[in-house]
C-alpha cells in the first residue's frame, strides 16, 4: 500500500501526526520514539516572547481523561529558531509550527519569523488563546476574529495554513467556514474542552487556574461529532484530534471525515503511540484490501441524514 499523500498542500508519509503541546518540540524523547516514522510533528504552541506558563498544579487526571492548564509555556519563537530548527531540519517527517498569540499582530509576527525556514512545512494556528485587547476573551469563540487571523496570516505565507478550532462553541462548523472563506488550507478539530476538578479535602480546584482543558479518551465521542459536523460543512481537509489512543480510534476519525489525525494526550502514556497507530492503520488497510487510506475519509455510513445538533434527543 502506498501511504504518502498530500493534504492541504503538505506531503505526509502517513496520516498520523502528534498534537501540539503533547510532544514538545519533537526532540524530547529520541530514545523512545523514531519520529521519522510519524506523519508529522506539530510543535508546542509558539509565541513571540518566551512564556513561563501557569503556576502548579497544571495537571489533573479525570476518568479516561486529563485536565491541563499549562498556560502556553514555551521557549518563544527566537529560541525556537536558534535551538530547535537546526535539529528539526534533520527530521524526515513533516514539522508543523503551531502558533499562539494574544493579538493578531503577534500571530503575524511569529509566522513571519518562521515562514522563511524550510524545516517548517506548514503552520497550525491555535486560536484558543485569550485576546488581550478584548479583555482576555478567547479568539476562538469569536468568528470574526478567527476570520481576521486567517486572512492576515494567509497574506503572509504560501505554506499550508491550518486553523485549530476550539470545541467550546455552539456551532463549530461556522468557525470552520470562517477559516475556509479566508483561505485556510485545513482545519484542526478539536482543541481541549473546558473542564474543572476539585479536591474535596482541601476544597481547592485541582488546577491553579480553576478551569482547564479536558483531553484524552473521555472526549473522543465529542471530537468525532465535531469532526463530522465540520467535514460536512467545509471543502478543505479536516485534521481530527481528540482522545485517539489506537489505530481503531484513528480509523473512526478518518471515517467521520478527517483526512489525517493527531495523537495528543496518549503520547504521555505511550510516547511511540503515533508510530504504532500509523502502522495499525496500514495493516488494517492491507487486511481489508483498501488500496488508498484516503478511501476511508468520510466513508461513514450515516444511517439517517439528520443534522448534527438536532438529531439526538
Amino acid at each position: 500500500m502506498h501511504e504518502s499523500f498530500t493534504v492541504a498542500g503538505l506531503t505526509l508519509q502517513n496520516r498520523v501526526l502528534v498534537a501540539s503541546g503533547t510532544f514538545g518540540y519533537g526532540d524530547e524523547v529520541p530514545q523512545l520514539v523514531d519520529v521519522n516514522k510519524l506523519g508529522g510533528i506539530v510543535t508546542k504552541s509558539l509565541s513571540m516572547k518566551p512564556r513561563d506558563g501557569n503556576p502548579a498544579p497544571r495537571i489533573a487526571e479525570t476518568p479516561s481523561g486529563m485536565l491541563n492548564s499549562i498556560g502556553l509555556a514555551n521557549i518563544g519563537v527566537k529560541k525556537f529558531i536558534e535551538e530547535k530548527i537546526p535539529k528539526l531540519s534533520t527530521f524526515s517527517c513533516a514539522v508543523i509550527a503551531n502558533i499562539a498569540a494574544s493579538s493578531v499582530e503577534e500571530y503575524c509576527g511569529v509566522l513571519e519569523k518562521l515562514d522563511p525556514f524550510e524545516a517548517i512545512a506548514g503552520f497550525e494556528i491555535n486560536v484558543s488563546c485569550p485576546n488581550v485587547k478584548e479583555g482576555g476573551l478567547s479568539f476562538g469563540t469569536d468568528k470574526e476574529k478567527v476570520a481576521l487571523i486567517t486572512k492576515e496570516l494567509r497574506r503572509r505565507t504560501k505554506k499550508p495554513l491550518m486553523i485549530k478550532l476550539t470545541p467550546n462553541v455552539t456551532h463549530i462548523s461556522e468557525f470552520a467556514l470562517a477559516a475556509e472563506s479566508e483561505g485556510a488550507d485545513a482545519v484542526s478539530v478539536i482543541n481541549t474542552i473546558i473542564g474543572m476538578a476539585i479536591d474535596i479535602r482541601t476544597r481547592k480546584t485541582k488546577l491553579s487556574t480553576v478551569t482547564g482543558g479536558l483531553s484524552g479518551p473521555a472526549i473522543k465521542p465529542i471530537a468525532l461529532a465535531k469532526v463530522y459536523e465540520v467535514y460536512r460543512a467545509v471543502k478543505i481537509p479536516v485534521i481530527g484530534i481528540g482522545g485517539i489512543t489506537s489505530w481503531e480510534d484513528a480509523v473512526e476519525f478518518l471515517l467521520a471525515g478527517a483526512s489525517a489525525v493527531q495523537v495528543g494526550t496518549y503520547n504521555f502514556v505511550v510516547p511511540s503511540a503515533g508510530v504504532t497507530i500509523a502502522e495499525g492503520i496500514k495493516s488494517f488497510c492491507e487486511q481489508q484490501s483498501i488500496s488508498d487510506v484516503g478511501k476511508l475519509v468520510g466513508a461513514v455510513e450515516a444511517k439517517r441524514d439528520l443534522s448534527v445538533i438536532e438529531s439526538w434527543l
Partner: protein
Amino acid sequence: MVQTHAPVHSVEEIASGIFRLVFRSHELAATAQPGQFVNVKVNDSLFPLLRRPFSIFFVEGDLVSILFNVIGEGTRILVGKKPGDVIDVIGPLGNGFSAAMNSGGYKTAVIVAGGLGIAPFPFFLSKLEKNKNVLSFIGARTANQIVRFGFNRIHIATDDGSEGFSGNVVDLLAEHFSDHRYELPRIFSCGPTRMLKRLSEFTQKKNIACYASLECAMACGIGLCQGCPVETINGKKKYALVCREGPVFETGAVFL
C-alpha cells in the same frame, strides 16, 4: 531511558500498609541512579489513563523495586499484581541525587525522610561512597509504618510517639544538630512538601546544603507536557520541570 514491559517478581507488605513491588528489568537496573524514578502504567486499560511515578527504592541484580501505599485507583491496581504479571515501565527518569551525592565537599550524608519519602534512600545508600558518614532521620505516622530496609543508624520520629522522638522529623533533626557536631554535613531529603519547607528553613538558617526529591502531579514524566513546574528562586527561568530538571533540587533553589 527505556519503555519496557517488565515482569513482576513480587509484591509484599514491608510495613503496615506499605508495599514493595519488585520487577525485573535489566536495562533499568543497569542504568538507574539514586533519586531517579520510574513511570508505571498499572494496567492496559484507559482508566486510570496516566502513568504513575515512583521513586526507585532499590536495585539488586536485574531486580528493581518501588515502594508505595494504596492511595487511589492506580496503587490499588498495583497492589493486586501477582508474580509474572507484566507492568509497562518507562525509566529511569529525571535527575536524581547523583550530582549532589557524588560531588565533594561533604563528609556526613544526612538523610531526612518523611513517610513514603524514605523510598529513594535504600538505593541511595547502596550507592554512596563508603567513606562517608551516614545519619538517617525517618519520620512516620506511627511505629509500624517505619521502613527500616537498607538503613542503619536510624533516628526515628513518630507523630503519635509510638517510637522514638514524638513529633516532627525536622524537630528531631534540629535537636540532634544542636546537641552534636557533624563533620561537613549535607542533607538528602524526601517527604511531604510541608516537611521539606520546614527542613529548607532549618538548613538555610544553619547554612547546610540540602537536596530534596520533590513530588508533583505529572502527566508524562519525560518533559513532553510541561505539566510539572516548580517555581525557581533566582533561576533564569521562572519554572523548572520536576520530571526533567528534578525531581531532586537544592531546597534553597525552589519555592516549596
